[in-house]
């Protein structure tokens, strides 16, 4: 894989992280998980202006987390699952890295403890 391809893939992952950092945008996505919705419908639970909601939607669209249907006049938004899967994949891999590290940390601490005990028995005093 070329550096340019890696850069594009990681920029996408990075923009997904950024998009998910905001609680309003997470709430919008959670709403879309139960089906398509218009901007007006999405704005309902929030005390926010339509332009403010539209701004959040643009960020989500830029991150590839939502898509908007062009054919319908009310242009409903729908959830796109792919970026969420990428994030989940990354997170699981990195979690596993730490999980295995902690296995080794545990083994190391046990080894140190058993060495200390052994040392204690063979001490002259």
């Amino acid at each position, binding site marked *: *894989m070329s*550096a340019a391809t*890696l*850069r594009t*893939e*990681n*920029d996408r*992952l*990075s*923009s997904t*992280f*950024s998009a*998910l*950092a905001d*609680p309003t945008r*997470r*709430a919008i*996505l*959670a709403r*879309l*998980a139960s089906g398509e919705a218009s901007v007006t419908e999405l704005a309902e639970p929030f005390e926010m202006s339509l332009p403010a909601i539209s701004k959040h939607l643009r960020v989500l669209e830029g991150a590839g987390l939502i898509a908007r249907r062009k054919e319908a006049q009310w242009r409903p938004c729908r*959830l796109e699952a792919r970026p*969420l*899967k990428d*994030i*989940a*994949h*990354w*997170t*699981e*891999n*990195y*979690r*596993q*890295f*730490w*999980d*295995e*590290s*902690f*296995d*080794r*940390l*545990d*083994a*190391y*601490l046990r080894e140190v*403890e058993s060495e200390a005990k052994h040392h204690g028995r063979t001490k002259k005093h």
Partner: protein
Amino acid sequence: MVEPRNTEIHAGRRPSSPESLKTGFVLTREFRVPRQVLWSALTDPRKLAIWWGPRGATNPVCELDPRVHGALRIHSQNPDGSIFPVTGTVREVDAPRKFVFVLSVAFPPGVVPFEVLHTLRFDEHGGTTTLTLEAQPLQTTPASLEWIAGADPGWGESLERLAELVQAGPGEAVRARA
């Protein structure tokens, strides 16, 4: 696949609630040692070099200055020869209770690094310490894009550091299990 114990992964579940869409993860482990011992194993670079990374990994470079603004640099080598380098900065030190640092994590090896905020909490009860790791991805930095070009020269430097370590004497850092 075995369900991970004591682990919470936010992203990737069906996004039924805003909370389920948070990125990052929380990992909790119990270690049967006092927290001062655990603190030392995590913040002393010679000890860190022994256990950092998955099974079979060695850490020819492992540097950590465990003070606020202190630098962290680890080059971890997997059995297949691939290098997993991380650099970072210490954000908060409250020995032996809390250790916070940001790492530029190029994971999987070879990709542009992400900044990930790591918060380690140490809670001791009757000689057993519960360690909680919270990992929160931030975002790619302009510096991390430049980093990718320098990844290979960095490995050459790692070998030099390894040579220095070996020459410096049989410290714990060179005992990292293969």
